[in-house]
């Protein structure tokens, strides 16, 4: 578990309509998460967060949801990774380090594989660990593999 230089809690809402199997939901734009290198991520369900800061209820289960993260070249750097394994409570308290890449958040998305247990207007909470591009030279040595 590498040091966390900065973090931001992002929220992906499932929308007001019926949640469908195979549905992709893009992550909205967060100004704080533009021009960043992502270094790690955590995902939460209703056992950790009851109500999001935006007032939405949080999904009760993560087993039917995957996460895809794109870089600035539109490459799928993380493709359909099960969000259940990004919840620290399910992996002995660890959070995932990511080999840093320049994140393009607005083209990244979650995929609902199975809507069982999910309801409309619920949110998936993503705690994104990052270093801003402006600070990257200062902190990049933390993330070099040795």
């Amino acid at each position: 578990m590498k040091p966390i230089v900065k973090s931001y809690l992002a929220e992906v809402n499932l929308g007001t309509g019926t949640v469908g199997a195979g549905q992709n939901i893009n992550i909205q734009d967060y100004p704080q998460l533009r021009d960043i290198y992502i270094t790690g991520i955590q995902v939460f369900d209703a056992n950790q967060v009851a109500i999001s800061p935006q007032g939405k209820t949080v999904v009760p289960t993560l087993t039917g949801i995957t996460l895809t993260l794109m870089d600035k070249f539109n490459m799928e750097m993380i493709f359909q990774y099960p969000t259940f394994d990004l919840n620290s409570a399910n992996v002995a308290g660890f959070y995932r380090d990511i080999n840093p890449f320049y994140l393009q958040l607005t083209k990244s998305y979650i995929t609902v594989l199975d809507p069982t247990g999910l309801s409309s207007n619920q949110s998936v909470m993503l705690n994104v660990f990052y270093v801003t591009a402006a600070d990257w030279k200062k902190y990049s040595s933390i993330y070099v593999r040795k």
Partner: protein
Amino acid sequence: MYFMLLLLTGKNTVQFMYGNNITAPKLFRLRVPLFKTEDAAGASGLGNVKYFFPDTPVLDKSTIVGIEAHLSTQSALLGDITRYENGKQNVTVLQAQNIFVTIYGEDKTQHFASIPLVSLFPNNAGTNKRVNAYFGKINTAMSYCMLSNPTGTELQDKYFVNLTFYYHPKN
């Protein structure tokens, strides 16, 4: 890593490193009150209520290398600290699900925005303790705990959030 830490702390911190992690020479437990003196009861209403950290000079401009929350037991959700401390209540694992922590850096910008409090509580306390390695120099006066969309029922009594900061003091 070594050069960056030298840059930030001004001293050789290699001796404090263990694998990916950095050991901390000092720990400080901070109790953040989830009430204001003018509150008659728990806050309620839409939106979020901020409760700022007490001024804590010992942590200001220190380089923190980890943050851990301490929560009390509620029903089957086991905590790691007593419910009552000097007659005042500590937040339980269940109540913590509505609380977020935002920490500012010494540059007065948000470094850690809305960390869910439960995520700072070591999983399976006592068996698999993992302290999240939040790292950097912080500004306690601007940092706060946030109660999300309170209904007025969760925290009617006056509660405290317990956070332990693992840190290197400033030189």
